[in-house]
């Protein structure tokens, strides 16, 4: 059942995803996890028996529903990690995808890993990750001396870990970082198989791009509603062409990004990472400006807690702080230049 869903299937799915996310409003992250897990939403993408083994496109309505409601939960992180966990750490997959334990993920950092006495010893600091104080597991990139980039699954509940709260940007999903000093990781929680890593990265970037889009779309909707209702100079703000054109441009930015997300969703496994990097680089470049514009269009109201626009902006900015447009573009540039220099297929 790993096929691209039809529009009708997605619509059905969107309705149940919205209901599930609605039910999570006001719940603690752990309670939300159980609710989402019981509905099967966390294991959407993981292969059976851990999950439903659905096409990645099914993640879109779930991410949309969660972003619009500003769900305080590491949803993208969990969905993106689900296949990886199922393959490399089945018992953790079981606990996380059923909603009994919460997993979060860092995208960057400077953690080194080295073998010593039958364990992987970690040193250094992770990049920022969301839901830092509520998660049981942390998936973090590490650099292994000889084997190159890898991922470590760290048990945050184990003694000796002190998560450092970081930044105030994302109020819905407070962030933190973790410092390791000679932390001994059980070998089974160290993942360095290239294919698993790149598939995980592709899913993570694609779903993150999607999340950025949904946050920007929510902010844009708020701006549309505000300028349609508010009058100044004796007319509705929406009648001013300068605002209409800015709104249209923002809409085009999302429409353009949609093309890249669609392309990444349709990509074959060997093209998936490149397509996801491109989609993410675009989303990271375009969505912050859309949320900032949306805030501006609210005037003073935008600067208050009376309208939720700033929450979306915060979420977007916190996300691109951990993986920015420029870094994402570096990867795109590498591929684009290599492709331009390669001969055209005959």
């Amino acid at each position, binding site marked *: 059942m790993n096929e691209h869903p039809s529009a009708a299937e997605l619509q059905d799915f969107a309705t149940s995803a919205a209901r599930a996310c609605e039910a999570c409003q006001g719940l603690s992250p752990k309670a939300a996890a159980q609710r989402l897990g019981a509905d099967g939403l966390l294991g959407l993408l993981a292969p059976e028996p851990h999950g439903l083994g659905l096409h990645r496109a099914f993640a879109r309505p779930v991410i949309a529903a969660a972003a619009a409601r500003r769900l305080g939960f590491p949803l993208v992180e969990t969905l993106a990690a689900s296949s990886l966990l199922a393959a490399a750490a089945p018992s953790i997959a079981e606990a996380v995808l059923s909603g009994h334990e919460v997993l979060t993920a860092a995208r960057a950092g400077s953690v080194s890993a080295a073998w010593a006495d039958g364990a992987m010893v970690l040193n250094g600091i992770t990049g920022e990750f969301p839901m830092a104080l509520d998660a049981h597991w942390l998936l973090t990139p590490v650099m292994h001396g000889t084997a190159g980039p890898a991922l470590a699954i760290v048990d945050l509940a184990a003694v000796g870990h002190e998560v450092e709260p970081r930044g105030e940007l994302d109020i819905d999903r407070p962030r933190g970082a973790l410092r390791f000093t000679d932390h001994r990781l059980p070998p089974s929680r160290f993942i360095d198989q290239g294919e698993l890593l790149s598939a995980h990265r592709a899913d993570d970037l694609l779903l993150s791009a999607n999340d950025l889009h949904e946050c920007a779309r929510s902010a844009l909707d708020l701006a*549309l509603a505000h300028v*349609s209702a508010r009058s100044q100079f*004796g*007319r*509705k703000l*929406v*009648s001013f*062409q300068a605002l*209409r*054109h800015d*709104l*249209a*441009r923002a*809409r*085009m930015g999302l*429409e*353009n990004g949609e*093309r*890249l997300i*669609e*392309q990444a969703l349709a990509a074959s496994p060997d093209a998936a990472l490149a397509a996801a990097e*491109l989609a993410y*680089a*675009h989303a990271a*470049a375009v969505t912050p400006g859309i949320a900032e514009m949306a805030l501006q269009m609210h005037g003073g109201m935008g600067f208050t807690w009376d309208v939720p626009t700033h929450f979306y902006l915060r979420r977007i900015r916190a996300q691109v702080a951990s993986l920015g447009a*420029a870094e994402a*573009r*570096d990867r*795109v*540039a*590498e*591929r*684009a*230049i290599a492709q*331009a*220099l390669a001969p*055209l297929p*005959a």
Partner: protein
Amino acid sequence: MQAQAHGSSVTAADPAAYRLGVRAWLEAELPQHWRADQLGYRAPATAELYDWERRMHAAGYAGMAWPTAYGGQGLTIREHLIVNQEIGRLAMPLSANSLGKELVGPILLEIGSEEQKLRFIPRLLRMEEIWCQGFSEPEAGSDLARIRTRAEKTASGWRINGQKIWTSLADRADYCLLLARTGSLEDRHGSLSLFALPMGARGITVRPIRQMTEAEGFCEVFLDDVEIGDDALIGSVNEGWRAAIEVLSVERATNRMYRGWRFENEFRHLVRVCAAEPTLRHVLADRHYRQQLAASWADIEIVKRYAVDVVERLAQGQRIGQHGSFMKLHWSEAHQRFAVLALEILALGWASDTPEIANARRRFEEIYLQGRAETIFAGTTEIQLGIIADRILQLPRGG
């Protein structure tokens, strides 16, 4: 009607084989010296271009999705896409009858009479009749509802008086797709009609306008008591605008479908010149330029994907509404950004004006200058933004 405009149900049995066939034919037949990314490039003369396009059609690579009865290939819009992708891959000269093939053909297929389809479409495909588009007027540019050129009913047909401007190729065209007023000006869009105006008719004066790029064929057209027959009317009286706009909104999404792939060809050209030239090689290692190249690459992928998505939607019989406005707005601005980047990069090679750099500079200067028109014609940037605001976002207009 969609089926007619976008292809019968016949599909080339094997798309991959079809593609290889197109690719091999173009590779073998397109002269090297007409390829703008090759040294020794020279633009083809008009007659050479007509001949080339005639041969393309004879080989099966024009009118892919049009019925064979009108000279088309009887295939679908999917084959149209494949041919365009292959055309885009090469730095091929632009069509000398693009208004005929991209605008007039689809309009005739949609609202023309059977006689008109049989009469006009095969000839424009065979390059026997070249078309121009007479919409814009001195007082009616973005606001086409203010068109004043008037067509009055006579006993045997229509009498036309007025003036058109910015009429590309009017100096060589055999026919003009004319939008003229057939009722009162107050009715704005509701009293405009479309005509196939023979450019050889008495009373037509064509005056050239010197274009910024020095490219020939930009004209203004004066119409003084021009008499044309009843059969010149396309579609119904006073329905010209509605029909035109319907077709135009699809055309905006489908015309020059090769665009994204040509854009990629330009990108390749620029990167390859940088890699080959010692004075430019540092560009490819410089993060500032790499970031900009990556942004252009994303732009290109978006243009390509829009085309692929539109073809799929049309092939499945879905409507594309006003989505062509996103495409037009995006590609025109993205192309301008890329041209600016190319000029900036190539200027860094000033110390060694090798033939490769000189050739690239010539090409990208032309693209840069021509690019300035791309946000003006076919509905300006501001008009596209207005369409998105009004029709897609459906923002209320009133005060």
